[in-house]
């Protein structure tokens, strides 16, 4: 694995804070067209066995070549490590002129793991303008425990990000992030290829850590997400806990958030 292709610590800190990373034009247009052809002709309908090694599916298909691109493989490695497990995939189709309504959700309320996480990758094989309704993500929702689609009442949250992108763009996201498919107001069918992967190793320092001590890392971890409002401090503490897990550094802190809570001295001063 070429170290220079792995995520940087700043990018990982951004992932820890917002729950997703976006990479534009990762996949060459020709390969996008070939993968799109596989989606639209139903060639990718069949799923690989759940839990099988991710190295197995699509040995000859264009979609396999997409995920074996060196940069794509390096990002996957940075988040879930070597030899991840295939969970499932879907070539999500939103037909032309389809209204989706409000459908914000979190995928897996039953996944109550505290720190370990799966990733999902959203690959857009065609140019996806606003009106075609690319996936909408709500940054900073990955530590919120809600019951799948019970958040459907929420139509808009400040800071929401919609995938408006060129062909070949990928979003890599923590599976707990809130998201929704959007309405397709165009006369053209829209595909988004979704892939879920599970780690098979401890998710610790799997990225390029050369810049771990850069001040930009703390900046990214400290960022305020507007919709958090009064809950910002608790979100920050969860983020710090997650960063401790990712770096294997149980003493990491931003200022003294956990430092205060963990400060319960037992030293008895004689004659006090």
């Amino acid at each position, binding site marked *: 694995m070429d170290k220079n292709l792995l995520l940087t610590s700043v990018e990982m800190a951004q992932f820890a804070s917002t729950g997703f990373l976006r990479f534009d034009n990762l996949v060459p247009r020709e390969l996008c067209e070939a993968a799109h052809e596989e989606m639209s002709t139903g060639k990718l309908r069949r799923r690989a066995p759940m839990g099988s090694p991710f190295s197995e599916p699509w040995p000859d298909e264009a979609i396999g070549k997409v995920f074996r691109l060196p940069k794509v493989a390096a990002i996957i490695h940075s988040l879930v490590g070597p030899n991840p497990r295939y969970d499932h995939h879907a070539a999500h189709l939103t037909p032309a002129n389809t209204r989706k309504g409000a459908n914000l959700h979190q995928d897996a309320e039953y996944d109550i793991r505290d720190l370990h996480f799966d990733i999902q990758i959203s690959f857009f094989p065609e140019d996806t303008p606003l009106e075609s309704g690319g996936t909408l993500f709500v940054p900073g929702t990955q530590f919120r425990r809600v019951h799948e689609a*019970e958040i459907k009442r929420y139509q808009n949250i400040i800071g929401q990000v919609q995938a408006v992108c060129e062909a070949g763009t990928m979003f890599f996201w923590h599976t707990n992030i809130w998201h929704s498919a959007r309405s397709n107001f165009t006369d053209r069918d829209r595909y988004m290829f979704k892939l879920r992967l599970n780690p098979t190793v401890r998710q610790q320092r799997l990225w390029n850590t050369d810049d771990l001590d850069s001040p930009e890392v703390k900046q990214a971890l400290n960022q305020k997400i507007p919709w958090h409002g009064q809950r910002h401090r608790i979100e920050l503490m969860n983020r710090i806990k997650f960063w401790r897990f990712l770096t294997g550094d149980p003493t990491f802190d931003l200022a003294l958030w956990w430092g205060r809570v963990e400060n319960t001295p037992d030293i008895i001063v004689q004659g006090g």
Partner: protein
Amino acid sequence: MPETQLKQKLLFLYLGNSSLESEVVGWSYYDGTTDEMFEAAGEDAEPPYNSVLDAMRDGWRVIQVPFIKAPQVGREYENDYLDFEFVLEKMEAING
């Protein structure tokens, strides 16, 4: 002569704090006077009001305010749904 009916519009405003003057961080709109469907408006969307108080000044009537509650013991660091959900209504007279 068409019968006049009162129909309800509901506006959900999610605030960053319990104060009705605090900033709107999310919103939803359900309009019983029309068949139009409301959904996420995209990433550049602006909330219809800056606060619940602003909406009240525009004629919206608050019909529910959120409880303020301490977290359960042992769940102090857990967040889940949006915390400060205010429900507002307007009634509109519709012919037919």
